């Protein structure tokens, strides 16, 4: 059984229909904990939604590459695309003290990834954005 899953997804909402079965199968076959599964799913959903919504349509690749790698003690998730540089790890923290009528969803996903994952890094290299996220697991 390979310790790496690689999926090339369309940059569109239909990406999730292709992503979910592959990732679910990967997590199921490795018997990951409920907490690890939640974090991996969160990482992929928030990151890919941002890449579908935000980069300008005329300056982005048609596809997004997702790598999910099982390492000793952690699952490493990498999401690569071609689009203008954007470092989510340096994004401003959303104001969580706003009342209900002023709440907006912007920035909340990145905030959750920073707070809930065990690693959240970014690099831009050779025209590609690369977001690497780490979820600790119990080594079996």
């Amino acid at each position, binding site marked *: 059984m390979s310790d790496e899953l690689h999926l090339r997804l369309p940059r569109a*909402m239909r990406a*999730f*229909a292709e992503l*979910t079965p592959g990732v679910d199968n990967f997590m199921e076959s490795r018997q990951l904990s*409920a*907490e690890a599964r*939640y974090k991996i*799913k*969160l990482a992929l*959903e*928030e990151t890919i*939604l941002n890449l579908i919504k935000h980069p300008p349509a005329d300056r982005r690749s048609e596809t997004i590459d997702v790598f999910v790698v099982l390492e000793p003690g952690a699952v490493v998730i990498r999401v690569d695309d071609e689009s203008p540089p954007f470092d989510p790890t340096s994004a401003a923290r*959303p104001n*969580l*003290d706003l*009342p*209900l*009528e002023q*709440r907006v*969803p912007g920035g*909340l*996903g990145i*905030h*959750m990834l920073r*707070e*809930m994952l065990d690693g959240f890094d970014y690099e831009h290299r050779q025209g590609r954005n690369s977001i690497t996220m780490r979820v600790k697991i119990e080594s079996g």
Partner: protein
Amino acid sequence: MELKVIDRDDDITEVALVGSLDVAGMHEVDVKFHGHTAAVRKSTIVDCRELDFIATLGMGMLIGCARSLQRHGAKMVLLGPQSLVEKALTTAGIDQVIPIAATREQAEAAVKS
């Protein structure tokens, strides 16, 4: 993902979210959730005990409906989320604008307060 509507004989709406409120789950329940909560304009208990995943897309649905209810003088309360769901909700600060109740009694008291 499933949305269950619970029959009640008082002036409170109660619905239960069952499953994963991910992208696919949102597609399945978003319109129905709005129809049974915000559109009804009554204070609402959202039973989260069988909800096993939520991210910002689903939180946006909750915020939007809670805001709509607030404009009509009604409240939304979340009932009994599982620990991982509760951690996601509190990390996003959702609990600061939509209260979380551990029991149905607490949820009923919160929407009536």
